[in-house]
């Protein structure tokens, strides 16, 4: 499977990619902002998206909204520091499949990946 990882922090992308590698995923596309994420989604056959919320150009919420507007059901996990109830609700309403709040423990991320990563 091919996974898109969108985060403006290079180190956070590497943390997520290490976790993806640990569950056997090596086909990974990276994006450093929201617009890059949308472009990458539109030009690749993506099976799972992990996206930050606060990014330059377009936010993670914009990414979710635009991809869902295309009629896509691709699983999207929001990985973000935004943890207030209203924001979680907004993300769910926009169409996220799951939500992981930073900071997280390595096992928390792996548990989310286990739900969506297929052999």
């Amino acid at each position, binding site marked *: 499977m091919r996974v898109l990882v969108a985060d*403006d*922090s*290079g*180190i*956070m992308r*590497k*943390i997520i990619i*290490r976790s993806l590698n640990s569950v056997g995923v090596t086909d990974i596309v990276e994006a450093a902002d929201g617009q890059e994420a949308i472009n990458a989604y539109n030009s690749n056959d993506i099976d799972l998206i992990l996206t930050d919320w*606060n*990014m*330059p150009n377009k936010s993670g919420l914009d990414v979710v909204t635009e991809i869902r507007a295309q009629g896509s059901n691709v699983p999207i996990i929001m990985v*973000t*520091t*935004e*943890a*207030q109830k*209203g924001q979680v609700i907004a993300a769910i309403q926009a169409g996220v499949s799951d939500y992981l*709040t*930073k*900071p*997280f*423990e390595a096992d928390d991320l792996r548990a989310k990946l286990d739900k969506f990563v297929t052999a």
Partner: protein
Amino acid sequence: MSTTAPTQINTQELSEKQKRFLAPFVKCTKDVFSMMLNWEVSLVGVVTNDLNAVRHHLSGIIGLSGSMRGSLVLSVEQEVALAAATAFLGAPPENVNADVIDTVGELTNMIGGSSKDRLGLDGVSIGLPTVVCGEGHTVNFDPGAHIEMLQFQSPHGPFTVEIALTGIG
């Protein structure tokens, strides 16, 4: 510029009001280091309103805006930043490279973001973190900001978390 004289106290001398104000920042800082790095860190001192406080080699800065306005600064020694990046990457970086800078920025982002949520204030948003480095660098806050510098000790060296807020009682 703040008119209050700077004071440095140990954590046993904090007033109840100060403890309540600082508690979310202390808790979130400990959580970020514990959860992301598996480091136990401890609060060892607090400096209030010292515009000349000495910072460490790398500082991550994040802005708060909306119903609460100000900045949060995480300042770490090079050894702390390198050890944190090593924990994130699984291998030590050769020098203070983009990964190390990003590590400081992301830790700042997580402390700022989770503190904002723990404060429970609606209508506060955080910006994107920026990182500055170099011995003796300075960070300028809003004139009149109330500044609290939390001094922590980690297994890899000292670091500080500074909160500068305007419009608080």
